[in-house]
């Protein structure tokens, strides 16, 4: 009973409790829970904000990007270079043309005579001071080189063009500077205008916020920001222009967290390097150092008071006060900044008065984007990533000295642009230029729009190389002097071989014709397919593959007879590696884009030394090169003579793949090697052969470059002999159609052609002599 009662009562109480007591209790508990949760969430949120802001700040703080330099231009009397190319080199190195080159980084020009005021520069092999020189060009060469006093100079090195920064993970680049290197007047102006209490506050300035809030309420919209520099920095770190209250609150918390973690100097320095100051296409301009280059084309150290005031003026709204688009507005704000500086005693009144009279001084067009050489920079990054971790490249502010030759790069870009203009829009092209003796990459063009940092075909488009493989086949033959010489006759009759999948394959000549028996050199010069396949099969696929690999080419796991016609895919850069071995006369020389990496304080961190290794002997290589000279004299490459004239002093090879999908040309002079590919990204047909496509780009490029004609030293063990082209037998000079060819000594054919049997020894000797003179 009692239990029931109690139970009843209990229930009664309970009901009441549910109606009043428990609800209140629940509410209380809920509230408590909410408070706890809020505190926990708040703490968690704060913790999270802390993690974010610290990570982001550290990332910027220590993220001095690596500076990347082109190769420095060397001047000496007799150097092949014309005045225009020199002007281009000066422009690339950011030299300003003036009347009188009083300051470093400027030059004057009078016709073909330049007076250049070099900047001081620390090269990997020593420091060079600033210096004035006078150089005169004549006939495509340096004619005279003198110092300021008129004394002849043997050698002069220009400070190199800065071609970019390696700053992975960010699209924007920077020109970060230490606070101590920033002009004091600039820093003073910034603090005066943006945050007078910077040195006192703790990240936010409640007074300023209050003042701003009042102004905003009065106006009914947000007209004023009470942001400290620290808050602005946070905003910049996260690149958001959202102006919600939530955002502001977060920024305020993060600003206080920053102040908690870092001292004022560090924060100020980061701000100066981080603040957003403009836009150049898809590139954001961050930091005063980069902005100075962007607007005035000079380093921040060289800006004057008026220019500094303009930069500070733009902090408030870089697009609203863009001095290029809104010069009036920008000028008004600049003058305001100048006034504030004068009032605050940061600059003296006279200087301000003078500065107010100055024009804005902004360069009309922004200098070309920091990475004007996206394809080459790509190569640099890849080369470095083999030896450096990404973080190291980020963190150490390295100085990277590369092999890029700006005037050669320019010529390569122009050749690609001009030639591709005539072809369909989807026809793409890529080019690589290499210095023969050193293997240094002088230029890389990754597509028909060379400034566009997209798909880098020079490095990433691996395509079948077609007939570019043939020199490997013929070289294999020439390495067996007992069996083959340049005059050996190869039969041009159909051949059928087993293909990759067991199917039979009958290669045809490109012109679909049969040429009967052809001498070896002519088969290469005219790029006949059938004799090449016959020859390659006789030599053995393995031997040909071995030759290709000694030239520096990579091989597929299994090789099929189709390799003989170039069914192996290389990028233009890989092709350049193979042809470099031919161009050097048999020395495999790894291609390099980087010479030296230095730390910011001047120690050499790593060198990429020149290395050479002879992988093909001199005599067969000499013979091959002579045959490749015939390619451009009378073979598939003769089109280059339209650009370079008869006897062009170059050697090369065309390549065309099935159905005109890929068009190649690889060719070299004594000092330069160029490889050009033309094709489509979707691997469609272009309607171009090696000769009508890539060759024309290559020839246009070499026509614009100074190059040393190819005239290889004849190695010991070579002699010139007359050969009857029909039979491949020994002939003499008076035999009709006889051709004179170099042969490995002792390997000339034993048999004599009919016409040569009459000839006596004296006559032969005469012919031999004539051959030498020829």
């Amino acid at each position, binding site marked *: 009973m009692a239990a029931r009662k109690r139970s009843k009562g209990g229930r009664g109480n309970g009901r009441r409790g549910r109606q009043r007591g428990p609800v209140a209790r629940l509410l209380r508990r809920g509230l408590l829970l909410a408070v706890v949760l809020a505190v926990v969430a708040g703490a968690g949120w704060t913790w999270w904000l802390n993690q974010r802001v610290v990570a982001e700040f550290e990332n910027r703080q220590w993220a001095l990007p690596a500076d990347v330099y082109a190769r420095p231009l*060397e001047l*000496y*009397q*007799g*150097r092949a270079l014309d005045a225009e190319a020199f002007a281009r080199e000066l422009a690339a190195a950011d030299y300003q043309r003036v009347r009188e080159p009083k300051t470093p980084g400027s030059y004057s020009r009078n016709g073909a005579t330049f007076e250049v005021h070099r900047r001081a520069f620390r090269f*990997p*092999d020593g420091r060079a001071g600033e210096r004035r020189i006078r150089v005169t060009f004549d006939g495509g060469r340096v004619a005279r080189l003198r110092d300021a006093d008129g004394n002849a100079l*043997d*050698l002069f090195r220009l400070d190199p063009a800065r071609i970019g920064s390696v700053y992975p993970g960010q699209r924007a680049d920077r020109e970060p500077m230490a606070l101590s290197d920033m002009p004091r007047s600039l820093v003073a102006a910034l603090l005066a205008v943006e945050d007078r209490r910077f040195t006192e506050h703790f990240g936010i300035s409640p007074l300023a916020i209050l003042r701003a809030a009042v102004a905003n309420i009065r106006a009914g919209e947000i007209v004023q920001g009470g942001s400290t520099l620290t808050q602005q920095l946070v905003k910049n770190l996260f690149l958001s222009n959202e102006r919600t209250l939530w955002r502001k609150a977060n920024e305020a918390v993060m600003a206080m967290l920053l102040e908690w973690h870092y001292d004022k100097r560090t924060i100020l320095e980061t701000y100066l390097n981080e603040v957003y100051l403009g836009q150049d296409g898809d590139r954001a301009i961050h930091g005063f150092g980069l902005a100075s280059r962007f607007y005035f084309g000079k380093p921040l150290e060289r800006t004057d008071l008026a220019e500094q005031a303009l930069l500070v003026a733009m902090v408030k709204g870089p697009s609203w006060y863009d001095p290029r688009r809104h010069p009036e507005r920008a000028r008004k704000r600049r003058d305001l900044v100048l006034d504030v500086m004068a009032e605050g005693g940061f600059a003296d009144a006279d200087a301000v008065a003078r500065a107010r009279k100055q024009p804005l001084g902004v360069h009309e067009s922004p200098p070309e984007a920091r990475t004007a050489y996206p394809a080459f920079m790509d190569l640099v990054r890849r080369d470095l990533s083999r030896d450096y971790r990404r973080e190291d490249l980020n963190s150490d502010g390295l100085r990277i000295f590369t092999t890029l030759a700006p005037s050669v790069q320019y010529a390569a870009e122009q050749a690609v642009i001009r030639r591709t203009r005539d072809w369909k829009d989807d026809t793409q092209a890529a080019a690589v230029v290499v*210095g*023969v*003796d*050193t293997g*240094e990459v002088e230029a890389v063009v990754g597509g028909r729009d060379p400034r566009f940092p997209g798909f880098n075909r020079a490095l990433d488009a691996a395509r079948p190389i077609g007939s570019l493989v043939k020199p490997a086949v013929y070289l294999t033959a020439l390495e067996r002097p007992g069996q083959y010489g340049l005059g050996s006759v190869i039969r041009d009759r159909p051949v059928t071989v087993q293909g990759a999948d067991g199917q039979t394959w009958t290669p045809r000549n490109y012109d679909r014709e049969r040429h009967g028996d052809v001498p070896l050199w002519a088969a290469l010069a005219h790029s006949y397919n059938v004799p090449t396949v016959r020859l390659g099969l006789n030599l053995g696929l393995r031997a040909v593959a071995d030759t290709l690999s000694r030239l520096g080419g990579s091989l597929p796991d299994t090789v099929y007879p189709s390799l003989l016609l170039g069914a192996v895919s290389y990028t233009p850069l890989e092709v350049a590696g193979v042809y470099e071995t031919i161009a050097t*006369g048999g*020395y495999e020389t790894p291609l390099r884009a980087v*010479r*030296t990496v230095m730390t910011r304080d001047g120690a*050499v961190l790593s*060198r990429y*030394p*020149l*290395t*050479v*290794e*002879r992988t093909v002997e*001199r005599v067969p290589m000499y013979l091959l090169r002579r045959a490749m000279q015939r390619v451009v004299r009378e073979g598939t490459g003769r089109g280059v003579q339209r650009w370079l004239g008869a006897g062009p002093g170059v050697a090369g090879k065309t390549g065309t793949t099935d159905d005109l999908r890929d068009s190649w040309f690889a060719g070299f002079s004594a*000092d330069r090697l160029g490889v050009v590919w033309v094709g489509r990204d979707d691997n469609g047909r272009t309607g171009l052969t090696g000769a009508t496509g890539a060759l024309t780009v290559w020839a246009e490029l070499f026509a614009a470059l100074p190059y040393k004609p190819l005239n290889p*030293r004849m*190695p010991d063990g070579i002699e010139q002999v007359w050969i009857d082209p029909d039979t491949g037998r020994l002939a003499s000079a008076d035999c009709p159609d006889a051709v004179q060819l170099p042969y490995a000594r002792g390997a000339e054919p034993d048999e004599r052609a009919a016409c040569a049997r009459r000839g006596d020894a004296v006559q032969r000797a005469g012919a031999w002599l004539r051959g030498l003179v020829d």
Partner: protein
Amino acid sequence: MSARALLAAALLAVLLAACSTAPPGGGTGESVPAPPPKEQRRAQPPPAGGGQTLPPAVRGLVAKAASASAAGDNDRAADVLERAVRLAPDNAAVWQNLAVVRYRQDRCDQAIQLARRSSELTDDRRLMARNWRLIAACRRMNGDTEGASEAASRARELGGGQ
């Protein structure tokens, strides 16, 4: 500092005498100064330089390399010589200097390659002989005694003197 400058000037004078005119006299025409002690314990490398008139543009570089090498800074010497190679790639003496510096850097494989390349660029028998002596020294260091004596006899045939 000034003592160093003096030394450099002296070396430069020696080098110019050696390089800019005829090849150094048959005897001990050292144009790149003696290697640091470590190398001295091993086979003495042949002298480099000379043999071919150096173009004015690289004369100063070769001298600079010589003093860097003498001061034991072969990395820097190699940097400077690579620069010289870029300016005068057909000059056998420049390649030979680089070969000698590679030898001093303990990079014998490259020294041999570079010495061969140097010889291919010249008809100067003395210079070729010096290259063969360098190759002989390298082969000896690599433990190839047979190859070393073959290279040494090639050097003798060319009559460069030792």
